[in-house]
């Protein structure tokens, strides 16, 4: 809901979550699938860097509603 309301005022928002299905249901538009509920931004800095960069790329991308991006393995 936060993602949707922030996007409503025109600020692109990327939502990193391990539950993209729920995020899609509530209407988030830019979603990155995080690795786990307990650590959506990964366990170490290297993994975190990959996730954050992926999220920033999505912020710079024209998207259809409810777009979900995976993290490259």
């Amino acid at each position, binding site marked *: *809901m*936060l993602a949707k*309301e922030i*996007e409503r005022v025109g600020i692109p928002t990327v*939502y990193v979550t391990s539950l993209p299905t729920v995020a899609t249901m509530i209407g988030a538009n830019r979603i990155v699938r995080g690795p786990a509920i307990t650590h959506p931004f990964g366990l170490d800095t290297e993994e*975190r860097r990959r996730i*954050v960069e992926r999220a920033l790329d999505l*912020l710079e991308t024209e998207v259809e509603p409810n777009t979900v991006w995976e993290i490259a393995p």
Partner: protein
Amino acid sequence: MRAVHYVNQFFAGLGGEDKAETPPTRLEGPVGPGRGLTAELGDVEIVATLACGDDYFAEHEEDALAALLGYLDDDHPDVLVAGPAFGSGRYGYACGTLAAAAAERGIPAVAAMHPENPGVDAAGKAYVVPTAVNVAGMRDALPRLGRLASALAAGRELGGPDEEGYLPRGLRRNYFAEQTGAERAIELLLGKLAGETRTEVGGGLDRVEPPAPVPDLSETLVALVTEAGCVPQGNPDRLPSVRAQGWFRYDLNGEETLAAARYESVHGGFDVTLANEDPNRLVPLDTARELEREGRIGRLHDAFYTTTGNGTPVVTATRFGREIAGELREAGVGAVLLSGT
């Protein structure tokens, strides 16, 4: 039983757009589409027709509503019927607004219009019967409108939108089902395999179109927001671990990382052991600072926003979102990195 019918200047036979400034007026008995509606109302009689010009209503909403509600008070109907307004925006808005105000006063109310008419959103707790987009749908609409209006006038308890033919109002009501959840789920699954997808949990949530992408992140102020319950150690503001009533903004004061010694998560919906070993796993401040130094992002907003996103009702979460969005916009934030669990 008594019904009052609301129509605009055109359907009341007062005139077209040239009479759109007509103030509210009361006519005896059924007029225009009310005559056709009468045949569908059974033992409900249209005792009066209220009419108002579409422009008058739009430009003097408060006065128009007060006058129309005054007529309703005098006529004390068992049901208010408004429209059908089809695809007409101003007419639909007047129908929806009046129906909502009547329903607020305890007068059962139903309006009829095209599902995409802005009047649907104005109808609040009143019922809306869907119609075609133009007046060609009159013949199809009146029997359905009449049926629902009679039921409301008789005080019958209504079933769901599909059963009774009205648009979902975003409400859910508990009821005793004859079959268990497992049986109903299997039925839906078999239906889906046969090519018919149905659901017991209809939409009801609106959608927001994705804003245009950030043109240049290296020139943009980026904010960190989380639903993962990240707070300063000791949770000084007592953020609840479930069913949060609010959100908090914590200044980062140039901090480079969310150090475990200074931050923790109080989220009650998952095991926070890993998160509390390194809170950057929930709010990636360390990485974001790195990217800020490298110039990938222009600047990091020097505060983060936090709440717990579990067990929060949709209306409450929506309020949090709206409040946070307001602050972010004021601060000139151009992009948000949000984390949930």
